[in-house]
């Protein structure tokens, strides 16, 4: 039997103008160590049981009122995951503490360059842009029984399980997405090549896209491409009881196709605002996603190379400079797009660094700093951890639990009871909002 030919792929390819180079703008992402943690272990603990142990009635969450912010249903969260373990001590520097120089005689900052916040602590000199932005600095965030493994600690941050004993199948941000889900194509988005355990959810769709802004050509209105999409659509329905992975792949493929539809709404880039860095790219894309009103409520941005075992001074300063430039640009972009009152930016990192230096750098530590930007009360929150009263392996003792930080974001930013998304009933950091 002979098929009629009404088109051919050459026409299609020429229409698209595809050259030899990659079409999906695969930016250099090979040089970012620690951009993922291990996948979560499977668990028999249903997520629904997370809050049950803390069944005591709590007052209805009181969302923030101190700073003008958008209505609850418009609020979004951008999580910047600083991979490798960011040194809190050289981010917010205790420049007046003599113990600082004792602990870091070789790699310590010249404290005269620190940008003071108060008489005790100040910003790393490479964070001059953010220092002017009235960010909230949450000091001493960590875990009561910390673990010095990147992978274990990152899993705890991603799942919101401070003890490491709950083995939750969902991520903390995935559970927030479940609460925020109103049936949109995507509620949580990771700007990365692979999904993050932090966004593992029960019902909300959470996706990862390396660079969503460049996938639009797959939606090309062309005979060939329509046929391909039709084929994908059929393939995405593949099910086979003997091969459960077919359903996993098929579901993801269907979600990707649905998400592609939304990409056509993406507004223009604000490139001139941003430094030409990889983080700048990721945040520029994030701003455009937030401006599309596609239903995305949480964007997860894994980035960075903070594992400064060696050459700490230069490499940590450089990471902070990249963060400072890109995040400051992002805040301006959000402002320009009218999103400043609806977007909260929060940083997480698996742990801080050891206060005492090794010969040229810092080994794995415990408590660190978290930064919040957006409609939040700026300035210092929580207590700076002591540099002299250390734990049994010479690391900082936390002053604020990771779960308190998360609980405050859940309740005060999203109006979601913390006990619905976290184990226990962590005390809120009421000064933040």
């Amino acid at each position, binding site marked *: *039997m002979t*098929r009629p*030919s*009404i*088109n051919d*792929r*050459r026409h299609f*390819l020429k229409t698209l103008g*595809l050259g030899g180079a*990659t*079409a*999906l703008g695969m930016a*250099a*992402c*090979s*040089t970012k*160590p*620690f*951009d*993922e*943690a291990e996948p979560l272990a499977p668990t028999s603990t249903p997520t629904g049981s997370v809050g049950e142990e803390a069944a005591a009635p709590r007052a209805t969450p009181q969302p923030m009122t101190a700073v003008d912010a958008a209505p609850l249903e418009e609020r979004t969260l951008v999580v910047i995951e600083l*991979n490798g373990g960011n040194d809190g001590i050289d981010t917010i520097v205790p420049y007046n503490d003599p113990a600082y120089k004792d602990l870091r005689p070789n790699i310590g900052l010249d404290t005269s360059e620190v940008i003071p916040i108060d008489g005790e602590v100040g910003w790393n000199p490479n964070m001059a842009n953010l220092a002017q932005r009235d960010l909230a600095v949450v000091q001493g965030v960590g875990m009561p029984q910390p673990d*010095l*493994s*990147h992978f*274990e600690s990152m899993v705890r941050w991603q799942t919101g399980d401070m003890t490491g004993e709950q083995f939750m199948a969902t991520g903390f941000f995935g559970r927030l997405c479940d609460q925020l889900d109103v049936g949109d194509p995507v509620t949580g988005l990771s700007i990365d*090549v*692979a*999904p993050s355990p932090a966004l593992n959810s029960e019902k909300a769709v959470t996706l990862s*896209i*390396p660079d969503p802004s460049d*996938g639009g050509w797959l939606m090309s209105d062309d*005979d*060939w491409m329509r*046929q*391909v999409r*039709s*084929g*994908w659509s*059929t*393939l995405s329905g*593949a099910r086979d009881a003997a*091969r459960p*992975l*077919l359903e*996993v*792949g098929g579901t*993801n*493929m269907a*979600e*990707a196709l649905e998400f592609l539809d939304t990409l056509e709404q993406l507004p223009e880039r604000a490139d001139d605002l941003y430094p030409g860095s990889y983080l700048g790219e990721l945040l520029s894309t994030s701003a455009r996603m937030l401006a599309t009103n596609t239903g995305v409520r949480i964007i997860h941005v894994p980035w960075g190379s903070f*594992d400064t*075992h*060696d050459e700490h001074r230069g490499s940590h300063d450089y990471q902070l400079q990249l963060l400072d430039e890109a995040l400051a640009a992002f805040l301006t972009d959000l402002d320009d797009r009218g999103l400043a009152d609806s977007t909260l930016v929060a940083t997480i990192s698996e742990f801080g660094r050891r206060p005492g*230096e*090794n*010969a040229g*750098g810092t*080994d794995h530590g415990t408590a660190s700093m978290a930064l919040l930007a957006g409609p939040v009360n700026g300035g210092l929150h929580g207590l700076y951890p002591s540099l002299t009263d250390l734990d049994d*392996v010479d690391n900082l003792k936390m002053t604020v639990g990771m779960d308190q930080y998360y609980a405050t974001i859940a309740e005060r930013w999203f109006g979601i009871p913390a006990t619905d998304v976290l184990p226990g009933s962590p005390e809120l950091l009421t000064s933040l909002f």
Partner: protein
Amino acid sequence: MSMDETAAQLAHVLRRLTFGPHPGDVERLRSAGADGVIDALLGRTEDDGKVRAHADHALLELPDSALRLEWDDFTLWWLEQMGAPSSGLHEKLVWFWHGHFTSTASKSGDAAMVAQHAKLRRHALGNFRDFAKAMVTDGAMMMYLDAAGSQGDAPNENLARELMELFTLGRGTYSEQDVREAAKALAGWWVDWETGETEYDEYIAYQGVIRFLGQRGRFTPEDIVDIICDQPSCAPFIAAKLYRYLVGVEPSPERLSELAETFAGSGLEIGVLVQAIVDDPAFLAERNTRPRYAIEWFVAAHGVLGTSFDNKDLLWMLDGLGQRPGYPPNPAGWPEGDRWLSASASLVKANVLFNAFFKDEDDATFPFDEEDAVTDALAYCGLYEPSDTMLKALDEAYWSPFDADDVNLLLVQLALTSTEFSLA
């Protein structure tokens, strides 16, 4: 429901033990059968030339020409080895160990990475203890995990920790004190970034006695590895990881302890462990139980397309797919699990294929019978137990209004972007 059990089984063996199957492999090997192919891949039969991936073809040493390449060119050379018809189990394990004893070209430098690769080839099916000793003083490894320049009086803990947590024992089998003590024993080395050559420096090495995993003494890095390899948690840790790679699922506790016993009893011979895993009926039974890693998908897809690995753009594609050789995301290597079937993975795969098709637009033709194009396309892609959905999708494509060459292309395009082709 399998349409052709023999073919399906052969395709399974080749997916798990090689970077294939490539077009024609299954048909060519039908007479040898799955057991015959396994025997040949393990080197248990004479090389009669029937199984081109016979163990005798393993490239245990790097040719001089490859040793001098910069990392990007070396990566293309390596991809060529993976995609070669003679590539077999050894090549598949070289990749496994690259994701296990991790180092990255962005930190360690090209010469050191290539030199490390030569060790991966030498030890891939050798003795694990010797392998770990070679890696703990490897230049690329010491640069990646900051042992290079580490000083005994203020040692850097990075390598000591990951050596135990990720490379040999697993978390929870040692104390923070053990990390600190091992770090002292691993201090005392410099690495030349340009050449990857290592040099011991007694002035920065730790000279005292340390206490490590219950033993006291003045220990060299090799001593540290010996003490680690004698721990009861070492054999099961390695056995479980290799089992997941080859079988696709977690071993049962009973099966794992059998394998660990076999592995430990052999003095940690990797070849013995591999045989024990592959010879168990579970190996043939657990079909399609894990995703193909991006590199497996990429090499197999390029085998179908017949393209050569001669273009550095391919490296950016592997980057986009999340698995560029020499650039693991972190010291734990590339994660296992369903992430390789993610939504983003499907979009990036589509993009990779469009690029590949475009490059060859004038000569991308496939030898499919016009009457049996769907069946031929599936076999060409190594898919011998297509789901009903796959058959439906390809049938729809078959009846699309394009000319025959374009229909063939569409069939291959859809087969390669399907979840079925993305499973190992």
